[in-house]
């Protein structure tokens, strides 16, 4: 394989395609057509290359590593001084839509097309140098089909999700996520509780910062945790060994001491096993001691069997299959219950090193319940898309006690264009990236809350007509 050291793109990886500031996560699979930034191509040729390699899309829809081409920008170009005489009548480009298409069909490279556009523009040499620069950049962006394949990371995935699917992550902007990871002191060797409905992005970010050391208990609503984004990170399998999950619906019972791992209703195993496809068991290492190994269906049948016997045999096989399905289901349920009990035991210790919440739910009930599982002198961070629920959360936490250093904050982010004589903040900016409430737990005393008395904000010097501390 070509290239030097570095992680290589492998089939089955989750890789991120990058073109300028646009990202898209894809599974690296052969003969799978990918659409990205108005281009169609196959990833087959990328397999084996190092992450970070830049490719061009050929006419056939294949990727080809981009050749390093020397930019010929050394000659001083003819340029104007300002735009007072430049009229924008839409007629300055002599090449038509069809002309350009013809060039593309001929297989002319993007760089050459840009050159053609410049030569056929009547106003190009009247533009200022800066305007020419801007023009060339714009055309390059459109016609030079350069794609870089990068390795996923929190930085890349959080930026991608915020740009492409902010709704899936409750509009959690990437710098806000960055604050959460630091405020929460996320690091290797801790026991973290994570409750998120951000497609598994927050979980992935926490896992990345823990590096496989320590343990995580993910609380989830409904039937199971969503980990779509988590799988994009490409963590080694071992990272998932200490990832547990626990349903929110059992939190109350766990806190009250009435928790039971048994399901609420007895499932009808016969119903479930009918016609169900065999799901592969994931990440289950232990075999239940009492159960025997699976039997395989007898694959071959003798050709000489008559129809009647075949029918009977078929029925017998079907029954055997059903019995095996039932057994598989039982094993699965046994496994699930075992894991649930394990997670419950971890929570019951009430010694988690931190709590991260980032969900679509109102944060107050989550905080008030989940903080019970956190040890004293540990940080917690709650994200909410809106500020008001955190005001309520703050108030209720004050009433509860057992927390100090409560802080409600919002992260403000601005990107800059830095070019010689042309440096300024970029023209568009994110209006809001969500809000954070963070704090530190302390030993919760029954009765009076000493912290309430401690945290009365220093009173302002002016009349307290309007201001009442909470």
């Amino acid at each position, binding site marked *: 394989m070509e290239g*030097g050291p*570095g*992680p290589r793109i492998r089939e089955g990886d989750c890789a991120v395609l990058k073109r300028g500031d646009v990202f898209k996560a894809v599974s690296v699979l052969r003969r799978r057509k990918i659409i990205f930034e108005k281009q169609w191509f196959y990833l087959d040729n990328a397999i084996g290359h*190092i992450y*970070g390699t830049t490719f061009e899309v050929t006419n056939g829809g294949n990727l080809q*590593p981009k050749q390093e081409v020397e930019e010929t920008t050394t000659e001083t170009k003819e340029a104007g001084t300002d735009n007072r005489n430049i009229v924008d009548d839409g007629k300055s480009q002599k090449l038509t839509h069809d002309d350009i298409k013809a060039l593309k069909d001929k297989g002319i490279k993007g760089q050459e097309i840009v050159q053609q556009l410049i030569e056929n523009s009547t106003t190009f040499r009247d533009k200022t140098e800066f305007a020419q620069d801007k023009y060339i950049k714009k055309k390059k962006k459109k016609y030079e089909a350069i794609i870089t394949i990068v390795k996923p*990371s*929190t*930085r890349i995935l*959080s930026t991608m999700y915020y740009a492409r699917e902010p709704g899936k992550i409750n509009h959690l902007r990437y*710098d806000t*996520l*960055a*604050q959460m*990871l*630091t405020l929460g*002191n996320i*690091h*290797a*060797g*801790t026991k973290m509780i994570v409750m998120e409905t951000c497609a598994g992005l927050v979980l992935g970010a926490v896992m*990345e*910062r823990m*590096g496989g*050391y320590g343990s995580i208990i993910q609380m989830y609503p409904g039937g199971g945790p969503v980990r779509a984004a988590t799988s994009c990170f490409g963590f080694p399998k071992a990272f998932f060994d200490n990832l547990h999950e626990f349903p929110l619906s059992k939190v109350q019972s766990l806190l009250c001491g009435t928790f039971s791992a048994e399901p609420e209703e007895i499932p009808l195993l016969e119903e479930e096993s009918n016609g169900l496809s065999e799901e592969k068991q994931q990440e289950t290492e232990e075999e239940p001691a009492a159960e025997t190994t699976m039997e395989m269906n007898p694959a071959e049948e003798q050709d000489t069997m008559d129809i009647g016997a075949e029918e009977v045999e078929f029925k017998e096989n079907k029954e055997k299959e059903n019995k095996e399905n039932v057994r598989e289901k039982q094993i699965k349920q046994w496994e699930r219950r075992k894991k649930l009990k394990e997670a419950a035991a971890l929570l019951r210790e009430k010694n988690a*090193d931190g709590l991260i919440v980032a969900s679509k739910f109102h944060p107050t009930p989550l905080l008030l319940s989940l903080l019970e599982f956190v*040890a*004293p*002198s*540990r940080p917690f961070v709650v994200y909410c898309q809106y500020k*008001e629920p*955190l*005001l309520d959360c*703050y*108030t209720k936490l004050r009433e509860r006690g057992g927390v*100090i*250093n*409560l802080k*409600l*904050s919002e*992260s*403000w*982010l*601005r990107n*800059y264009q*830095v070019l*010689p004589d042309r*440096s300024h903040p970029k023209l568009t900016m994110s209006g809001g990236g969500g809000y954070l409430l963070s704090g*530190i737990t*302390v*030993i919760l005393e029954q009765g009076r809350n*000493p912290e309430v008395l*401690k*945290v009365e904000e*220093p009173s302002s010097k002016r009349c307290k*007509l*309007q*201001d*009442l*501390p909470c």
Partner: protein
Amino acid sequence: MPGGNYKIVTMSFVEYGDTIKDGDTAIVFLGHESMFPVKVQHGTVTQTKYGVIRHSTDLIGKKYGSKVTCSKGGWVFILHPTPELWTMNLPHRTQILYSTDISIITMMLELKPGSIVCESGTGSGSLSHALIRTVAPTGHLYTVEFHQQRAEKAREEFREHGVEHLVTVTNQDVCKNGFGVSNIADAVFLDIPSPWEAIGHAKSALKAEGGRICSFSPCIEQVQRTCLAMEEYGFTEINTLEILLRVYNVRTISLQIPDLGKAAEDNSSSGFDSSNPSQQSSPCANLQQGTVQFKSGVPLREVVGHTGYLTFATKSLV
């Protein structure tokens, strides 16, 4: 902070402990952003505005997160140190980086356990502690400081905080002599007056297969020169940003209902009746009527408007 013999500490800034031990650095929390670090030591006392704390009886053996009553009757909380708490309380030898910038730096440099990071200048060690925490237990921080006393003080603090195995402090000028390592770093961070002079050294400290770089500069002119240097040395994905934290105080606000008078002369009008003479007295007495109460997140009067520009870039093999 009192000096003295160093005991072997099992707690550190990179590993949580449950109980306060002799030799720990603990954070004394007095209330509302008022706190200070303390070196726990048998036989020592610490003065606070609430009275005296005796380490032997009040601290050692107690759980982190405990309330401790001081001699005058007031109380404090004792907290386990974290890099974030350390940043808020460390002794400043230079201007420091705060957690807001540290957070985005950590994420944009893609730091995680096992990462190798180079940093210059070490300064007061605010960022250093955060970096060490993130790359532990298998990573390493190479930090370069050209001021001899500061370099020595940093070494001392890393020792006291139980993290010296994760960091190497070098006393030299990074612009002249680089970081002292080659082709091993996943990331480089620069917070120096002339970062463009260190870009070349940064590039050689980074792994051959690539890595990330960040430069922090208060002035835009510095940023311009640094971006140019990054481009010249073949860095890609050059991106400059700034980040600020806006903090809100949670307050219950009461606003008075204005007296808009009555529609007609009779006294039967209901609603916000303001003809009642008792309205003229203190509004606090009228919390039940004549005022509207609500909770608000009120911004602080004075906030940080600028710390510095952060420029990130990628070193790529291809």
